[in-house]
Every structure is written in C-alpha cells, then in structure tokens.
C-alpha cells in the first residue's frame, strides 16, 4: 500500500511509530522516517497510526477510504457559468508530480467532472521526492517505491512518458513531443525543476558522478553507496547535499562535503544557523570544507570517477560524487508562448494565474509548485520561487480551486513558506523566509544541544523562524510572522536563553534573475513587451 506523511505538518509526536513500528521510525528526538510503500499486511496498524496522528498528517491510498458522508470537502454547487464549466470544460495539467497530482484530486473533489488530462514526461505515476535523499539512500525504501498515495481516485487521462514541447495560447492547445496536440480550456503548468547538471560536459559523463532528483538518480546512487565506496564527495552543502552526507554517515561511509560559501545551508538559513549545521556535520564525522569548490573531476581510462582536484589545490580520491548544485526550472517548453517564463520560473499572481510577457495576468493559464514564481504580500510583494513540498501542495490546491471558481470565489495563495529537512537525526523546520532578514536571535532552547528556535527579523519585524528538534513550538512563531510582530521578540517564554541577543543574519546577496525585455510600439494600444533570449549563468 502507499502512504505519505505531510512532514510540513508533522510535529514529531511519534504516535505513528508506536502504532506501526515496522513502518514509521523516529530518529533522535522527532525526525520521522517511514516506509512509503509498506506491505499490505501492515494496513490495519497503519490505519491506526493515521487515525492517531494528532495533526492528521498521514495519508493513505484509497483502497482504504470508505464512503464517508461527513467531514470536509462536501461541496454545495452554486449556479453560474463555473458550474457549467465543471461539467463541460477541458483542463490540462502539464507535470505529473506532486503539484499535478494534488491539483488533479482537488479538481475532482471540488466537483470538476469533465475532461482532465495530465501530461508528464517521466514514465512514472506521481511519486514523492523527499524520501529519495533520506530513506532511499539509507536503504530503507527502494527508490522506485515512493509512489504517492491517491486518496481520491483521480479519474484523468494520464499521458505519461511524453513531454509537452510547447503551448499555443491562442489556439488553446498543448503540443506534445510525439506530435499530438491536446486542446484545453484551462491549463495548469506544474513542470517543476530539474537538478542542475555538472557544468563541465566532459566531466559530467564520468561514471560515479550523480545528481539527485528522480528515482533513477536515487537508485544509481543507492547502489554505489551500498557497494561501500572508499569516499563519497558531496559538492554543495544545501539541504540536498547535507541530507546526502547524512545518509552516508548513517551508512558509515567516509564523506567529504564541499561548500563554496562559508557554511552549509547558508543560502537558506544564513551564516549563523548555517554555523550550527556545520558543527552538526563535523560532530557526525563529515569532512566539511567550506570556501572550497571543485577545480576538476578526473576519471580513469574506463571513465570511472577517481579523483577530485579542489579549488584550494588539494586533491581527493573519490569513487562517488554527488553534485548538489541546486536546480533549473523546467520552462524551455514555454519559450515563445507569450508567458513570462524564464530562468526565474513562470511568473504568476497570488491567485496562481500566469503572467504574460507584458506583465498582464492571463485568465486560463495557472501555475503551481516548484516552477512557479509568485508575489507574497508578507515579503514586500516580492516574487518568490519556493522549492518546498508544502508549497507545491498548498499552491496547487489553490490553483485548482481557482481554475473552477468564479472571480469572487477565488483564493489567494498566502500560506507562509514552510519546509523541513531531516538530517543527522535532527528535524530542521522553517517557516517564513529566513533570507528575508537582517538579524537573527535564539528565542528558545539551546544551540549546544541542537534543540532551539531561531527567530529572524527584517527591519524590526519577525519574518521567519527555524527550529532544530523543536517543531511543536513553530506554529506559535508562524502566528507572529502573520501578525507582523516586532523583532526582536521581547516577551518571556519557557526555556528562554538568558544570554541571547540578536546578531547579523549574514544571508548571501540573492541575485535576482535577470529578465531582458524589449518593448515596442507607441501609445497604450500598441506597446507590447517581448522577452529576449539570453544565456544566463
């Protein structure tokens, strides 16, 4: 059977691990790892686990779902053109992963009964990626067994294994790689991101060099790790790289992590909390080298990776390397479509409607998930691109709802950004945007024990909070962000460090991706923008 845990909601109560100990396991204080595809014999215990979860974060596939008359999701149709659309319209979703699946089931749940087509270039039904860098690498779950449960049967035409290559907004059709054209009335773009490939093409082909985004990637890497390599090199200490390093240490493999910045996770959490992460890595036996990059990767005659020459002049013998270099948005298929799509993603408004090159919102094209770039009022209306599981779920739910709602019933995507990472037996959780900050303070707990809450502030207002193994408190801080509470927090709490004072957050300058636009025409009726193609770094 298939299960998925919404780890953004999970607060580590461990009720699931008590009820079904063969399926759910707690590492350290509250880091939950689970088998996404457990044996059917566990079904009864898993049902108990799901019912017991205090925050109802566990979802099972539908074999189990009965006809439940009550609860959420009972929909009272209001008459109007949107009701007709629900019975006769055509919706196409491009991208058959988390966002695409959630959007599809939301559409069905909210009463869309007409034609639904989901197009995905991967051959798989929607699967979950977070386990790929955690349970899968540790060998607890096979890479190809993280399929997402389907709670509501998404009765759709699944076109898997074929990429969308273009979209004709005037003709209202999506073009497929096999030459087919699929017509739509409304379109959802959910094509996500892919791993940034190793920049040196010759080196990129070395056997033993991996990126990590898909089950194929994870499977290959897992096999190499299981074979007990001499040393693993992880290039880039963001969340992905850090989780890979953690899995290596869990497997007792020697691992070196290279990070160009000062500390791991610095790009997401700033140098102060990144420093805590650095110590955590070293305490777990990671050979962490900051301020160092790779000058070259070298292989042997048969093309197997053997050595890395580092930017500081040293060399390292390695059999396996993981390039955790961040991501590239899957927007190429939208080139020339007239949408504001580029390296920054696909721009949309807070109602998930795509924005065209002129900066005008479209009516029939929606965007959600990792590929979207959307303004957030809490963060000065800046356009944020978020590669977080919870964002894909929340945003695609809103997008789907808005696709079949009249203007007055449409909702804004105002959820605060949230993510988790499980590494070195520690649950790291974040709410808000930690890089939208100038100062940070430890509000609760102890950094030495790695059980603490760090609160981030920007110009006197709380903008983010990050918890290490303290997730039960985090929703309180989310409330403070919602209310634009003053920074630094000045109230008394339990477990308040006596010597805490705000320090500079040290977040890296974030270069805004450049969009080069040429405007032509005279007067309001003629002026139009065109995106100019450039090669960006």
């Amino acid at each position: 059977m298939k299960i998925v845990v919404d780890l953004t909601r999970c607060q580590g109560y461990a009720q699931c691990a008590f009820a079904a100990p063969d399926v759910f396991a707690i590492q350290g204080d509250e880091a939950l790892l689970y088998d996404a595809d457990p044996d059917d014999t566990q079904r009864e215990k898993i049902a108990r686990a799901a019912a017991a979860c205090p925050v109802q974060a566990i979802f099972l596939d539908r074999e189990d779902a009965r006809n439940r008359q009550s609860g959420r999701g009972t929909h009272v149709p209001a008459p109007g053109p949107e009701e007709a659309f629900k019975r006769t319209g055509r919706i196409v979703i491009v991208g058959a992963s988390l966002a695409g699946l959630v959007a599809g089931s939301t559409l069905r749940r909210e009463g869309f009964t007409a034609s639904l087509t989901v197009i995905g270039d991967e051959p798989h039904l929607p699967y979950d990626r977070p386990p790929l860098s955690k349970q899968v690498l540790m060998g607890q779950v096979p890479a190809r067994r993280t399929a997402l449960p389907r709670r509501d049967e998404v009765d759709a035409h699944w076109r898997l294994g074929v990429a969308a290559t273009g979209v004709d907004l005037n003709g209202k059709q999506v073009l497929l790689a096999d030459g087919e054209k699929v017509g739509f009335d409304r379109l959802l773009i959910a094509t996500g991101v892919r791993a940034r490939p190793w920049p040196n093409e010759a080196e990129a082909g070395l056997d033993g060099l991996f990126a990590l985004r898909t089950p194929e990637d994870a499977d290959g890497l897992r096999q190499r790790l299981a074979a007990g390599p001499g040393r693993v090199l992880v290039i880039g200490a963001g969340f992905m790289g850090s989780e890979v390093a953690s899995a290596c240490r869990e497997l007792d493999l020697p691992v070196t992590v290279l990070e160009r910045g000062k500390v791991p996770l610095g790009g997401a959490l700033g140098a102060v909390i990144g420093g805590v992460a650095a110590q955590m890595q070293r305490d777990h036996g990671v050979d962490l080298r900051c301020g160092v990059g790779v000058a070259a990767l070298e292989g042997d005659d048969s093309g197997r990776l053997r050595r890395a020459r580092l930017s500081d002049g040293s060399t390292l013998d390695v059999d396996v390397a993981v390039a955790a270099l961040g991501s590239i948005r899957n927007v190429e298929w939208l080139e020339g479509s007239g949408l504001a799509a580029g390296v920054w993603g696909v721009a949309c408004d807070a109602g998930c409607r795509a924005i065209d090159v002129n900066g005008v919102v479209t009516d029939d094209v929606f965007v959600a998930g990792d590929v979207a770039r959307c303004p957030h009022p809490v963060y000065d209306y800046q356009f944020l691109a978020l590669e977080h599981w919870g964002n894909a779920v929340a945003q695609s739910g809103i997008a789907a709802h808005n696709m079949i709602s009249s203007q007055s019933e449409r909702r804004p995507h105002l959820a605060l950004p949230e993510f988790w990472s499980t590494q070195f037996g520690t649950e790291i959780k974040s709410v808000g945007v930690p890089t939208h900050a100038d100062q940070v303070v430890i509000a609760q707990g102890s950094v030495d024990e790695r059980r603490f809450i760090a609160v981030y502030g920007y110009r006197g207002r709380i903008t983010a909070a990050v918890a290490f193994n303290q997730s039960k408190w985090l929703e309180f801080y989310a409330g403070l962000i919602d209310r634009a509470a003053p920074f630094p927090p000045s109230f008394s709490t339990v477990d308040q460090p006596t010597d805490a004072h705000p320090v500079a957050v040290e977040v890296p300058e974030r270069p805004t991706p450049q969009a080069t636009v040429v405007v032509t025409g005279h007067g309001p009726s003629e002026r139009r923008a065109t995106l100019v193609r450039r090669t960006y770094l």
Partner: protein
Amino acid sequence: MAQTSIWQQILDPSHRADPFPLYAELRKTPVVREEDGSYVVSTYREIVALLHDPRLSSEMRNLPELGADTPAQASEEGPAELPPNVIQADPPEHDRIRRQLTWNFGPPHRPGRVDSMIPDLLEIVTSEIDGFTGKEQLGTTRVDIVDDFAYPFPVTVICRLLGVPREDEALFQAMSDAVIKAIDPSTGGIAEQQRRRAKATADLGQYFAELLDARHGQPGDDLLSGLLSGDGPEAPMSYEQILSNAALLLVAGHETTVNLITNGMLTLLRHPEVLDRLRRGAEPDLATRVVEELLRYEPPVQFLSNRYALDDIEVAGTTIPKGSPVNLVLAAGSRDPGGVPNPDRFDPDREHNEHLGFGGGIHYCFGAPLARPETQIALTELARRLKNPRLVADPPPYRPNPTLRGPRHLLVDIDGVNPAQHRPP
C-alpha cells in the same frame, strides 16, 4: 451577590451528566475572565494556539500568587514534597524528563514495546468479560461497566507497565483519588489545590519508595526499573524525581482510561447503529475511528487547569495578563463548530479528526499510545461479546470531578456473554 458564571456552573456537579450546552454558552466568549483572576478559554483555534504558546508555563508552583513560601515546603505530617514531574515542568527540564521516561516506553529506543503489549491487553479484557458470567438472575445479567471492567482493566495494565503488584490496589487507590480530587477546581483555590496535590503525590511517592525498597536489586523490564538503572539519553533522574513521575504515571494511567472506556460504552449504547457495526466486525479500523471520535465527543479530560501566563498574552482580542492562571477547556474546543463541522454529532466516519482529547504541544499525553489500543480492544470485545446490552439508567450517575469526567457506575443488563472469538495467542 455576583451571578454564578458559566464556568462556575460547569464546575457544579449537578451539570456533570451533560455539560455540553454550558460549553456552547462558554464558547460565545472565547476567552473569559473569572472573578478569581483566572481565564477560561473554550474555542478550538485559541486552545490549539495556547497549547503551542511558549508564554504559558506548566510550573504552577511558580505562580506568582502562591508567593515564595509554598514550594518544597515539607508538610509537618507525612513525607517530604517531591520535585516536579513531567506534567509540572517546563522545558528544558520537561523535555529531559520526557525523553528519559520515553526511553523504556517507545521510540526511538523501544519502538515496539506498546505494540507487543497488545496480546496482553486482549487477554486481560477477555478474562474480565469472562467474569461477567455467573451473575445471571432470571435470564438477565447486570454488570457495572465501571467497577467490573473499565476500572480494573487499565489498573492491571499500568501496574504491569510500572512493575506494581496488582494486589496493592487497596494501598494506592485512596492516594490516587486524593490526587485527582486535588486537580478539581471546585474543591478550593489554586493554592489549596497545589498544597493538596503535593501532599497526595508525596504520599504516593512514599508508597513507591517502599515498593522499590522491597524490590531492591531485582530489576524487571518495567518502566521504573528502567528509570532506576539510569539507562537513557539523559542524565539519570534523581530518586525523588523517579518517585514523583511514578506517582503521576500511576494516576494518569488509570483515572483517565476508565472514563474513555465507560464514556465509550455509554455512547455506543446511545448510538446502537455504531455498536452494531462494531459487533459485526466487518470494518477492521472502525474501533480506531470510534475511539478517536470519543476523544473528541466525550473526552475523559475535560479541561486543563495547570497553566499560567508568563507574559501578557493576547488571545481572540482579550489580553490575559502576566501571572494569570489559564484554563483550557479541551472538551468545549473539540466541539467548537469553528473547528469541526457538525460537532455535536457522534460520527466515527469523520474524515479529519484533530481533536484535543490528549492535549497538544509538548505535554501531549505520554500514555496515548497505550490508552488507544486499551480502549479499542475493550470496546470491540464488549460490542462482540455482550448479548443484547441495555442501559439501566440514562444518564448514569457521574463522579463529581469536572476535570476527569465520567460515570461513577454504568449499569448494563445483558442476556449473557458470547464466547471470545479469538483467543489470545
């Protein structure tokens, strides 16, 4: 004379059988100030927020209005006061105690422990129901679900878990009663409650001290032996801390589950269609959902009165001033239409049940993973085995305690007992 507040009426034992209309009244003002300066919070969102609010403390002994003289004041007669246990401590102390207690109880160190107790639970339940036979008069057997079943069963379980001899019930029963009386806000002011609770806990601690003395050098696989061995992720607890937490576990382990089982049987008898579904046994996870719904609909712990504000806290437009005691009315919150649709309907088929029955946040019930299967098994077996059960009195007589609410007796007439379907392995 001031009008009796809704809260005062709730505390009044005459409303014990059905406090829910009063809770509905209470919810009209989500945060109410009582005459004694304490605050009562009754709406779902506000309770959830406060359960996760680090500005609330559970260290009531530090409550400013108690003054400096109460803590650790040795009572003249009887044993010395014990240090705070897990439910009375704030982090980081709370978290340390909790990790140490969990070490021999569940994940990460003993993940399968509770799961492995399930055959035992079934065996105890089976033999207790077997005991209903032989009291038959004119074809009818009258059983008291409380005294004959729902009370003895969890006591047996917690005794096994703690390594306490079951025969000692006569010894600890009165002390345990005294502890739960002390958390009843209708029996005196906060200072008075604190004093009586400390005294009753110290007495129970004394019982445990004697027990451990007698057992010295013969550690078992029980929780107390684990704590005494000092094995765990934290520095070993002091002897007094062990006694204090042992006393809490003994009380919490049986004064609550009895009410969940009894409230459960009462609710099932009031909803025969659900009882029937449970009896038929065609839905393997029905018992699970029934128990979760009971925790929402008829929760054994109606409210928490063990917190106070460390700072001014604004909730739903009201400021709770620093130093004020705060009551969180879990039972009212779980029936708040703002938190759950059709709250007054008992509906085990709810798709999403985020009830407050076990609290929330860091003090979330430690024993929940045990109380759940206890009640699931108890209700399933009662449903399957009792022939034609009928309520003798509705409502049944209630215990006076407004916090830990439940029937004092639940008399049920049956036409006999079916044989157990599956014998414990």
